[in-house]
């Protein structure tokens, strides 16, 4: 169930090519949101419908039985980047944000409930090598299979490039740096 990191590298390399879908195959509904050099800030708002046939259902581990949507985040060449993810939607939805944790060989919950709702919010801090990219693929799932038919949206905010690691580490935060990975205030 782990998303292949090598696939992400391929995606990044081919991001300027319209052949992405043909080459990689259309899988689950997902969004590629990289931080290319010379750009910073901004946000995107993605509507997600878990009833869509291209939204996959976890088959094992923490995601077993739950619909989930993959977000590919990336940054390159020493450009450290803080991202903020926020889910929200009609009342009755319940989401959870996960990141794969190799130490448990499964997805680990990063955030369950935020902002006084059953929806979720988390920060992702990526510190890439000086010459190359680093990728993090948070997963947004239904809280349980009972929410596999929900519709909601995901807001993905690329924070200003001046945002420091300390400023990014607020609430539930996942860090991926040259020193390794860390879950902070995971719930």
């Amino acid at each position, binding site marked *: 169930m782990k998303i292949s990191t090598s696939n992400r590298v391929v*995606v990044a390399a081919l*991001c300027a090519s*319209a*052949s*992405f*879908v*043909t080459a990689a*195959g*259309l*899988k*689950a*509904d*997902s*969004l*590629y*949101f*990289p*931080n*290319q050099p*010379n*750009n*910073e*800030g*901004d*946000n*995107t*708002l*993605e*509507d*997600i*419908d878990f*009833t*869509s*046939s*291209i939204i996959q259902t976890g088959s094992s581990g923490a995601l077993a039985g739950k619909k989930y949507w993959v977000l590919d985040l990336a940054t390159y060449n020493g450009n450290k980047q803080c991202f*903020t993810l*926020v889910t*929200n*939607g*009609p*009342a009755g939805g319940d989401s959870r944000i996960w990141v794969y944790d190799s130490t448990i060989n499964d997805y680990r919950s990063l955030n369950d409930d*935020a*902002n*006084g*709702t059953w*929806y979720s*919010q988390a920060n992702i801090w990526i510190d890439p090598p000086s010459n190359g990219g680093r990728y993090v693929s948070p997963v947004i799932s239904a809280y349980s299979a009972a929410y596999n038919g929900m*519709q*909601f*949206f995901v*807001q993905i*905010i*690329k924070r*200003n*490039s001046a945002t420091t690691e300390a400023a990014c580490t607020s609430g539930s935060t996942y860090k991926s740096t040259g020193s390794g990975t860390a879950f902070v205030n995971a719930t």
Partner: protein
Amino acid sequence: MSRNIKLYASVSVLVAASAIASAAWSSDKTYFVNQPQGIDVSLRNVDFATASVPLGSGPTAGRKVWDLDLSTNNGTSQCFEIATSGDGTGDTRLWVADQSLDDDSGDGLYSSARVWLVPTPGNYEYLTVTVAAYSSAYNSIKFSLDIRKRPGLTEAQCVGQGPAVKSIQGTRTFVNAN
């Protein structure tokens, strides 16, 4: 197909606020905004077979449609590039309001076009590009939508090749639309 421009302005202002959601849900769509500091590439997979993806009206009647809302603000002119692609079995068309922007400028029967937005100082400039099935025969296609911001391009560089639409302070012009 309804579009609430004011809502998106609110989204930009309340970027971290959770209150935007309850009013926001409609069909499957991507919101791609050029804030003072910008985004790069958004790649989204779309499945027209999803029930929440609506059918169009007017020239897209009977066809599945998916809206892409583009905007820029704070006096920042911006060039966007849009392309659909897939496994070769799909056929898309890009529309702006009731006019076709592009049919087959992308790979095979897929579509590609550019958008040039120029806001008035202190305001947003919005444009919604509708990605539609070419005909109802393609209402179940799965495809990828690639949206990228092209930083640093002038108007002439942005619209100098292929189909494009310009929205300059509320005035819309099509270039090489097909």
